[in-house]
């Protein structure tokens, strides 16, 4: 077979140190893995912007976000973004599963999943590609709302610290919700079911620190820690705490492992 691929595989017999660009997550051929992951991510992004769902989701998010923010902004008359960051988790709960619902469910439903999983990429690489596309799309939508701080900054002095923290918090929270959405998309071949399940799971995480009065005292701390808002609040104060980052990272990792397990079972 003529060697069509430029990057050679490292010799297997020599116990060589990991080649340049080695990543334990992606394995031996990290560079080639990235070529594949980015190709998949690009293809997914392309399908987002080709389908009308993307625009519908985007417009609805921006309408609601804009309404929630500006209606209260003029009521309080303060140059700050907290009103936006306060309502955004609620909106993301809808937005994230709507972005991810088709990612796996559609492939499984049309059978193209078979094509995808006979290409030389691992489940982890495939999930990474899909996740990156969804995250990029979410980042674009959230990025559009950067127009809010830019607008209100012209009205008076804006403290950019909490704004930047808040946006970072949104992206991190969005990533966690997206990975939950990706997980529910793997569970079913029906996109609507994937969306509803994804929303329900995100909602549970949102709700869990709102029902503390029903929980026995010694567990309150634990359940409070599980709640999503407990962690996003710090961000919108401009505080980036490693505790919060670890919280969101664990959600993402657990969701990824869950998705992998579900997909492995299909084999």
């Amino acid at each position: 077979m003529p060697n069509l691929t430029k990057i050679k595989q490292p010799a297997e017999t020599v116990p060589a140190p990991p080649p340049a660009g080695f990543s334990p997550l992606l394995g031996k051929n990290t560079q080639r893995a990235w070529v594949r992951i980015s190709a998949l991510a690009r293809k997914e992004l392309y399908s987002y912007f080709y389908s009308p769902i993307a625009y519908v989701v985007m417009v609805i998010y921006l309408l609601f976000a804009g309404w929630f923010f500006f209606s209260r902004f003029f009521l309080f008359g303060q140059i700050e973004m907290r009103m936006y960051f306060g309502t955004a988790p609620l909106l993301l709960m809808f937005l994230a599963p709507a972005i991810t619902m088709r990612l796996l469910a559609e492939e499984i439903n049309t059978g193209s999943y078979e094509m995808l999983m006979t290409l030389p990429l691992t489940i982890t690489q495939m999930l990474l590609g899909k996740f990156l596309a969804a995250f990029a799309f979410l980042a674009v939508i959230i990025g559009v709302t950067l127009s809010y701080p830019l607008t209100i900054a012209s009205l008076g002095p804006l403290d950019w610290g909490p704004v930047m923290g808040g946006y970072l918090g949104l992206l991190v929270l969005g990533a966690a919700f997206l990975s939950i959405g990706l997980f529910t998309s793997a569970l079913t071949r029906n996109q609507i079911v994937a969306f509803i399940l994804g929303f329900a799971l995100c909602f549970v995480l949102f709700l869990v620190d709102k029902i503390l009065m029903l929980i026995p005292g010694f567990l309150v701390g634990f359940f409070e820690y599980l709640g999503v808002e407990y962690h996003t609040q710090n961000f919108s104060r401009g505080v980036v705490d490693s505790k919060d980052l670890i919280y969101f990272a664990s959600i993402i990792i657990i969701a990824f492992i869950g998705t992998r397990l579900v997909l492995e079972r299909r084999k």
Partner: protein
Amino acid sequence: MIRIEELSKNFSTVKAVDQVTFEVKKGEILGLLGPNGAGKTTTLRLISGYLRPDQGRIFVGDQDAVENTEAVRAMIGYLPEYNPIYQDMLVYDYLQYIAAMRALAPEVKEERVREMVTTCGLKDEVGKRISELSKGNRQRVGLAQAMLHDPEYLILDEPTAGLDPNQISDIRDLIKRLGRKKTVILSSHILSEVEATCDRVIIIHQGKVVADGNPKDLQRQAVDESRIHLKIAGDGNVNEVLKKLEHVYKVEADENESKEIRGYLVHSAHDHDLRPDIFRLAQKEGWVLYEMHREVVSLESIFRRLTSG
């Protein structure tokens, strides 16, 4: 070379593939033949790495396909059944996407895509959306996709399903040409297809291999007796006289052409050609021999015999 050893795969209680063993050499085109639901697609899915076997081993080249799935997938070109491809992509974009997923080097990428477009006769379709293509052209995109990285091994699940006769013969020619240099496994439930394209046939039934060999050998193996159809006009008990010939097992009445010209079906040992004997007998008895022909067992009847009941 692809080697499969005692491969089994169950879906809940159904044994989809049951202790299947075979080997395909380089330069060989193997046809998997069987009725619908026999386990052909499952076997191919196991080789392509989409499914994981419950038991048994698969070697593609010198690689274990279960342990080194990714490496094996990189060597295989696969056309799944029903050819599921993304409907909303342009043909060109889709091939570019597959080229990227196959990690083809940028300098050969364009060239390979162009080559496949020419080979598969897709020149007029490259700018179209896949959902707009006819079934035949979509199948060609599937083939182009499978061969894009010039794989050593080609696995084609029902490659000519849904095509018109012209397209079928085009694709058969293509497969035959490829088969000289590569290892090809294709599946089909159409006998003429397998007879026309394959060097070797494996018949699968209820997940098991029931026959394995080249089409000619299979025909020979399956014949345990030879049958001769006769149309004879003659006096006396033709039936009884025929029965007395050496090597004859049984004589049956066949369709009569008229009152005088009667039909007979003679079963005899398959290693002895009875026709000269019958001719001489007819001469001796003064019969008029209107017709005599020996039944050739087709792959179709072998297939029916092996897979029914």
